[in-house]
């Protein structure tokens, strides 16, 4: 059961990096740790056989969103955070919200496990998800795929038309 040990390894690393994200003083180190978390999660997705989501995770989160984070940090020239006391009252809200999300995800995970053991949910074996998604995208969902491109085009036009500065 090699994948299980690997899963523990990647998940453990993800937790350590996540802690590093919130405990680092230098915001650039925090951002770098967050990138590490994303990559570790992508590794977990690969182990689960969801290689398409793993690739999207790397491309979108690491490639686009985190780079934006780092850009903003660099551009604003944020100085090192001052050392704060670890326990201040407003953090209680954050801790509670974190616990709530943890509880919710635990419930989702448990439900999925029950569903799997009852045979209600099935994980397709032997299929690689990129091929499957590609096949669906260009057969069953061909027309929606094309119309979605029109919808995106409208968004682009809107950004240009409404965002452009006009001399009165």
């Amino acid at each position, binding site marked *: 059961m090699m994948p299980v040990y690997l899963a523990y390894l990647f998940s453990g690393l993800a937790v350590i990096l996540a802690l590093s994200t919130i405990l680092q003083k230098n915001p650039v180190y925090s951002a770098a740790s967050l990138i590490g978390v994303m990559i570790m999660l992508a590794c977990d997705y690969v182990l689960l056989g969801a290689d398409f989501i793993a690739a999207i995770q790397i491309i979108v989160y690491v490639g686009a969103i985190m780079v934006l984070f780092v850009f903003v940090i660099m551009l604003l020239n944020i100085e090192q955070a001052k050392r704060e006391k670890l326990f201040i009252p407003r953090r209680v809200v954050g801790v509670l919200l974190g616990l709530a999300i943890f509880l919710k995800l635990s419930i989702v995970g448990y439900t999925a496990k029950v569903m799997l053991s009852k045979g209600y949910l099935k994980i397709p074996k032997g299929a690689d998800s990129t091929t499957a998604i590609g096949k669906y995208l260009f057969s069953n969902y*061909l027309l929606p795929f094309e119309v*979605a491109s029109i919808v995106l085009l*409208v968004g682009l036009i809107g950004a240009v038309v409404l965002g452009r500065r006009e001399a009165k």
Partner: protein
Amino acid sequence: MANIDLLTITPDIILIVFAFALLLAGAFSKVERQANFNMLAMLGFGLAFLVNLFLFGAKKYGYYNMFFFDEVAGLFRFVFYGIGILVALISEPYICGKIKHKGEYYALILISVAGMSFLATAYDLIMLVLGLEAMSLSIYILAGMFKHDEKSVEASMKYFLLGAFSTAILMLGIAFVYGALGTTNFGEVVTAYQKNLGGHKPELLIAGVVLVLAGVLFKIAAVPFHMWTPDVYEGAPSSVTAFMISGVKAASFVMLIRVFVLGLKVVVFDLVTTVMVISAVTMTLGNVCALVQKNVKRMLAYSSIAHAGYILVGFVALNKTSLAAIVFYLIAYALMNIGAFAVLVLFDDRGNYLESLSGSGFKYPFLGLMMTIFMFSMVGLPPTGGFMGKFYIFKGALEAGYVWLVIIAVLNSAVSAYFYLRVLVYMFFEDFKGAVAPSVNSTPTTVALVLTSIGVLYLGIFPQAFFELTQRCMTYLP
């Protein structure tokens, strides 16, 4: 069943190609030389109309059952392309000099109509959402096209935020429906209902259907979801308001019919009571609020809420007559609204307030006559299309036995006579104050006025042939 048949979506491809052409032409030409852009847009709509005429009558599934072209879809495509032609006609004199992005303006109208057309041919909830978004996003942008007018920007922002919210609700509903049935395809709903659910309706399915209904009713502007209507219709450029009030209304009703009568027909009878109450409240509230409006655009916005109530009566009755009457009513409604807005557009927004219209009826007899026809049609007086539309809707409702709903609707129509005819009172029985004058280059708008008034009168005087056509096309119910 792949059936990737390009011919059936040719009208929409034509519209999108023309939209691209206009975008490029707008980018590479000077604003002064863009006066004929509306002709190009009209050419696009005209071609699409002709191709649809050629396709009309066929029944075609396509694109792995994402797409179903039938008589209803064909009929609604005619409505949308016709609205496109009329709006392109009334736009040019109005936006000339006010909008610098003419290419984008017409391109967005073309794409929006293509979205409506995809809505009308959708056979899967995914296609429905994409068609709806192509239509709505274009209109959010169009509403804010007067960038130096605070009200226009406000309208755009308001409509965008609320519209995005309503789409989110619609999507949540679709997710619930998918969770309950295991399919989003209209063709598989009945089998999935019998096989996966064993003929039971779990709460999840009902919750999903109610959320989908809420999303659709938002676009229709029925009562609990009508709050955006007056501000958006008043703030948006008048030509865009004419487009919204006719096109979006027709598109949302075709969405209502296709989702609930063709698609999720297993639950449609569970919704009738809800829609009945909504319909009664909608028409009453729309009419009562319209009574006190001083601004004609705002008054027409509330009147559009009231008309949505009348048309919903047709959905409540749910028989062949009433569904055909919905199509008939929508066409008459589109014609009279575009006509009324064409008059406002011709006065270049200076006649938006009732006082400023004073005396303009005798000063400009042609416009006075036109406004008379359209206002009579809105009240529902013979011999206009509005009267016949209401007649057929009420006939369908009486056949289904909803007598009290018809009584409420008739009382409402009587109330509505006050504020529609008040416009005419100001136009004909007050002294002219010189507040309004038609814009200089008015030929296209005049053509649109003539076309819409002929349409309204034709539907009012010879409704039989047309109504039989809509009845023959409405094949969803026996």
